[in-house]
C-alpha cells in the first residue's frame, strides 16, 4: 500500500508538471491523471482503514529537525478516503467542465496532493507544510485570473482568515509539542496529557484554528464567499473535502492528542456545532444562488459533525469510551456522507450552469424536463442532505441523535446532559430547516415552469453526467451498506480510545453500544414494498387511472411562469419566523403621480444582511485600521529614526537582561 500511495502522489506531480509545461496539450491529461491517482489513493487509504493498521512511510529530511514524516493511521486514512473519493469524481467531471487555464490546470493536482498530504502527515512540521500548501493552492484556484471583483475579494478574505487560523492551529499543536518534547504524531498520540489549563488552551486554539477551515460560526464568513466563486469541481473539492481537513484537525487534537479531558470541552464544542448548524442552514435558506446555498449548507453540516465531536469529547471526559467511540463514528459517517452528497450537488450545480447559464434559483425552473439525469441525481443528493431516511444523510444524523440521547440520559455532569438535550433540539430544528432548504433548492431549480428562457435544450454532456450518476449510486450504497461502513469505521476509535462503540451484527444494521439500532436497508425494503402495494391494490380493485392533461388552475386566468413563487418568496415564512435572528431588511417605495390615488411606481427591495459580518467583523476591521493609523506616526521615513528605534529597543533589552 505504501507503494500505491507513493505512486498516486507521483502521478499527481506528473499531472501538475504536464499541465504546467503544456505537454498535455488539449488532451486534459492532467485531470485524467488526477482521476487515476485519486482512484489509487482511494484504494490505498481504504485498505489501510479496513486493515486497522498504521502505515509508516519513508521520511525525508531536507535539513536537520525538518523531517518530512509520513504516517497514516485509521483516522488519517479515513480523511484520505474522503479527499480521494471526492477528487476522483471531481476530476472526471472537470475533464469536460473546466475551462482551459494553464495555471489552474497545473494547480489542481497540487491541491489534491496537499490535501492527501494533510491526511498522511506524520509530524507537526509535515502537517503544516501540507496545510499551507493546501491553503495557497486553494487560494490561487479561488482567485483564478482575478478579473472579477467578487473573486478577488473572496480569495483575499479567505487568504487572510486561513493565515490567522493557521497561526492559532500551529500554536495549539506547539503547546502540546512543548509538553511532550517531540513533534511526531505517534509520540503526541501516546502522551494523553488530559485535563488542565494548557490542554484546555490547546483545544480552544485548535477549535478556532481548524474550525475556521471547517467553517464554524462565527469563523465561517469566508466559506460562503470563497467556495461558490471557484469553478464547480473546485467548489466540490473545497466544500466536500477541504472542510473535512478542519474536522480532522479538531479530531486529531481533541480525541487523539489530548486524551480524556474536562467536562466543559464537550459542552463548548457541542454548543459551537449546534449554533453553526442552525445558522448555516438558515442562511442557506435565504440564498437564491444555488452554489452559495450549498456553501452555507456545508457550514450547517460541519456544525453537525462538530456536535458529534463534542458529544465524543463529553463521553470521554465522563469515562464512557464506548459511547465516545460511537459518537466519533457518527461524526465520521456524516463527514463521508456529506462529502458524497455535497460533491454531487456542487457538480450538479456545475451541470446546471453549463446548460442554463445561471445559478440564480429565482430565474431557473422546470429543468427536470431538459435535464432528467441531472435532476434525478440532484434529487438523491438533495433528499440525502435533507436527512430523509432511508438515504445516507440520515444515517449519520440518526447516530448523532442517538448518541445525544444517550448523553442526555446519563453522561457525566448535569450541565453536559442539559447541553446534550439542547443540542438535540437544535439538531431537530436543523433537520427541519434542511428539509425546507433542499426541497426549495430542488423544487425551484428543476420543478415548475422555467422562469427565464433556456436556450440549450439538452442535458449536460455524458462525461459530466457520469460522475453525477456514480455519486448518486454511492449515496444509495452508503445507506444500504451502512452497517458495513460503520464496521470499517469503528477501526478509527479502536486505535484512539480504545473502544469500538459499535457492535458487529449484520452488514446492513448499525447497533450502537449505547442502545438503539437502525437498518437503512430494511427500511428501504419496507418502503419499496409498502409504497407500490397500495398502487397495485387500487389498480386491481378499481382498474387503471385515466389521465388527461390540462392547464394549471389560476382562478380563471391563463397561468404564466411569472405567476410562480420564486426561491425568495418560498423562504418568506421562515424569513419572518426567524426575523429576530436574521434581521431581514426591506424597503417599499411608492410614487404617486399628481393627485391620482393610483401609484405610478412601486419599488420593493429586500435583503438578508450577513449579521455576523456586519456586527462583528466590520467593527473589528475598523478598529484594526484605526490602530494601524495611530502606529503609523512612528513611521516617519527617516532611516536615522528607525535606527534610533533599534538602539532604544537594544538598550531596553539590555536593561531587562541585566535585571
Amino acid at each position, binding site marked *: 500500500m505504501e507503494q500505491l500511495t507513493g505512486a498516486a502522489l507521483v502521478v499527481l506531480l506528473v499531472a501538475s508538471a504536464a499541465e504546467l509545461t503544456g505537454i498535455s496539450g488539449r488532451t486534459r491529461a492532467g485531470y485524467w491523471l488526477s482521476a487515476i491517482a485519486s482512484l489509487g489513493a482511494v484504494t490505498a487509504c481504504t485498505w489501510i482503514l479496513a486493515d486497522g493498521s498504521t502505515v509508516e512511510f519513508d521520511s525525508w529530511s531536507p535539513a536537520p529537525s525538518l523531517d518530512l514524516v509520513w504516517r497514516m493511521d485509521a483516522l488519517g486514512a479515513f480523511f484520505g478516503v474522503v479527499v480521494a473519493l471526492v477528487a476522483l469524481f471531481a476530476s472526471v467531471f472537470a475533464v469536460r467542465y473546466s475551462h482551459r487555464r494553464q495555471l489552474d490546470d497545473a494547480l489542481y493536482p497540487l491541491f489534491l496532493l496537499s490535501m492527501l498530504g494533510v491526511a498522511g502527515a506524520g509530524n507537526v512540521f509535515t502537517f503544516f507544510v501540507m496545510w499551507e500548501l493546501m491553503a495557497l493552492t486553494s487560494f490561487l484556484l479561488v482567485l483564478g485570473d482575478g478579473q472579477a471583483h467578487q473573486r478577488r475579494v473572496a480569495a483575499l478574505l479567505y487568504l487572510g482568515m486561513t493565515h490567522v487560523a493557521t497561526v492559532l492551529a500551529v500554536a495549539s499543536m506547539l503547546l502540546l509539542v512543548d509538553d511532550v518534547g517531540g513533534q511526531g504524531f505517534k509520540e503526541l498520540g501516546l502522551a494523553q496529557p488530559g485535563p488542565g489549563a494548557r490542554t484546555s488552551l490547546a483545544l480552544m486554539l485548535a477549535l478556532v484554528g481548524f474550525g475556521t477551515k471547517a467553517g464554524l460560526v462565527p469563523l465561517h464568513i469566508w466559506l460562503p464567499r470563497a467556495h461558490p466563486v471557484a469553478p464547480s469541481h473546485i467548489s466540490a473539492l473545497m466544500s466536500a473535502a477541504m472542510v473535512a481537513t478542519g474536522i480532522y484537525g479538531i479530531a486529531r487534537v481533541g480525541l487523539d492528542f489530548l486524551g480524556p479531558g474536562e467536562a466543559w470541552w464537550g459542552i463548548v464544542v457541542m454548543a459551537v456545532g449546534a449554533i453553526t448548524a442552525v445558522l448555516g442552514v438558515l442562511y442557506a435558506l435565504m440564498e437564491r444562488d444555488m452554489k452559495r446555498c450549498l456553501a452555507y449548507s456545508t457550514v450547517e453540516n460541519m456544525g453537525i459533525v462538530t456536535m458529534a465531536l463534542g458529544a465524543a469529547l463529553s463521553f470521554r471526559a465522563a469515562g464512557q469510551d464506548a459511547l465516545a467511540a460511537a459518537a466519533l463514528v457518527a461524526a465520521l459517517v456524516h463527514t463521508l456522507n456529506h462529502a458524497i452528497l455535497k460533491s454531487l450537488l456542487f457538480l450538479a450545480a456545475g451541470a446546471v450552469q453549463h446548460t442554463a447559464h445561471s445559478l440564480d434559483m429565482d430565474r431557473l425552473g*422546470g429543468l*427536470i*424536463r431538459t435535464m432528467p439525469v441531472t435532476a434525478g441525481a440532484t434529487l438523491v443528493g438533495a433528499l440525502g442532505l435533507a*436527512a*430523509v*431516511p432511508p438515504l445516507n444523510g*440520515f444515517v449519520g444524523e*440518526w447516530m448523532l441523535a*442517538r448518541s445525544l*440521547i444517550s448523553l*442526555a*440520559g*446519563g453522561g457525566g455532569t*448535569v450541565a453536559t446532559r*442539559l447541553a446534550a*438535550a439542547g443540542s*438535540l*433540539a437544535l439538531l*431537530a*430544528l436543523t433537520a*427541519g430547516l434542511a*428539509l*425546507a432548504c433542499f*426541497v*426549495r433548492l430542488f*423544487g425551484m431549480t428543476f*420543478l*415548475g*415552469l422555467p422562469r427565464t428562457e433556456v436556450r440549450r435544450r439538452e442535458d449536460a454532456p455524458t462525461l459530466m453526467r457520469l460522475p453525477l450518476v456514480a455519486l448518486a449510486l454511492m449515496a444509495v450504497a452508503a445507506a444500504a451498506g451502512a452497517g458495513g461502513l460503520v464496521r470499517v469505521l469503528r477501526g478509527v476509535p479502536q486505535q484512539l480510545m480504545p473502544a469500538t462503540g459499535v457492535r458487529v451484527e449484520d452488514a446492513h444494521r448499525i447497533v450502537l453500544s449505547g442502545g*438503539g*439500532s*437502525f*437498518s437503512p436497508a430494511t*427500511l428501504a425494503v*419496507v*418502503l419499496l414494498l*409498502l*409504497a407500490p402495494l*397500495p398502487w397495485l391494490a*387500487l389498480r386491481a380493485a*378499481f382498474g387503471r*387511472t*385515466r*389521465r*388527461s*392533461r*390540462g*392547464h*394549471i*388552475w*389560476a382562478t380563471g386566468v391563463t397561468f404564466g411562469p411569472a*405567476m*410562480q*413563487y420564486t426561491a425568495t*418568496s*418560498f*423562504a418568506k*415564512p*421562515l424569513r419572518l*419566523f426567524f426575523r429576530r435572528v436574521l434581521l431581514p431588511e426591506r424597503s417599499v417605495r411608492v410614487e404617486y403621480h399628481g393627485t391620482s390615488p393610483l401609484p405610478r411606481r412601486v419599488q420593493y427591495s429586500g435583503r438578508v444582511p450577513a449579521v455576523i459580518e456586519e456586527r462583528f467583523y466590520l467593527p473589528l476591521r475598523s478598529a484594526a485600521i484605526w490602530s494601524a493609523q495611530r502606529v503609523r506616526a512612528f513611521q516617519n521615513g527617516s532611516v536615522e529614526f528607525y535606527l534610533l528605534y533599534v538602539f532604544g529597543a537594544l538598550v531596553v533589552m539590555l536593561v531587562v537582561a541585566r535585571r
Partner: protein
Amino acid sequence: MNAEPWLLGAAQLLFVLAAAPLLQGLIRRLKARLQSRSGPPLLQSYYDLAKLFVRSEMVAESASAVQFVAPWVVLGAMLSAATFIPMFGAATPLTTAGDLLVVIGLFALARAALTLGGMDSGSAFGQMGSSRELAVGALVEPALLLSLVALAVATGTTRLGEIVAIGAHEGAGFFDLQWALALLALTIVMLAETGRIPVDNPDTHLELTMIHEAMLLEYSGRSLGVLHLAGMVKQLLLACLLANLFFPLGLRASPDLALYLRGGALLAGKLVLVGVGLALAESTFAKMRLYELPDLLGSASLAGFVAVAITVWQS
C-alpha cells in the same frame, strides 16, 4: 422464521388503513355536533375515498413524474412508520430496524414527497402551500422529537415498543410534571401535523389561510384520494403515539392473542377519546395568523425541552 412479526405487521397495516378514515369521520361528526350541525355520516370519509379512487385524473401539462410518484411515497412512508409504532401491545412488527428517530424521519420523508409534489406543476398555490408546510414542519420537528425524547430519556431506550413496555410496567410513576409537559408538546404537534386549527384549517380553501389543501390543489382522482388517505393515516399514527406512549397501561411486551385483542379494544377506546379531544380543541381555538405560529410551536418545543430537562435533572 418467526411468523408473529409478519402477522402483527399485516394486522397493524390493515388496522391503520381501515381505522384512519373512521377516526377522521368521527372528528368531523363531533365537530359538526359541537357547532350545532348534524354533520356528515360517520362513514363519509370512506365514501369520499371510494369516489376519488374511481375517478379519472386531470394533471397540469407542466407536471413531471414527481407529481405521479409523490402520493405513493407519502402513503408508503406513513405505512412504514406504522410498523415501528406499538398499537395492540408493547410489541412492534419491526424492532431492531429503527426507533422513534426513524419514525420522525419517515414523517420528514412524507413531507418531502408531499411538498415536492405540490411544487411540481408550477402552480403558485402548490408552491405557497409547500413553502408554508415546510416552515411549519421545521418548527414542529424539535417539538415532536423533544416530547418523545423526554420519554426515551426516562425509560433509557428509543424503541417505541420498549418505551411502552417500561411505561406499562412502571405504571403510575409515569404521571409527573415532565409527562404532562411532553404530552402538551405532542398535542400541539398533533394539531399542527394534521393541519387543524389553530395552525391550518382543513375545511377551507381560502388562500390566505390554507397550507395542506393548497399543496393538493393540482391533484385529482386517485392521487388525491391517496393523499387524503395518507393524511388520515398520519393523524391516526400520531393519535396512536399519543394514546400508547402516554397512556400505556395494560399493554404487554409479549402478548398472546387475547392480550392483543384487549390491547386493541383499549386502543380503540383511547383513540375515540383522542378524537373527542381533537374535535374539542379545534372548536375551542381560533385560527392563528401564519406568522404567529412560531409562538405556539416554539412553546411546544420549550415544553418538550423542559420535560427533557426535568427528566435529566431527576435521573
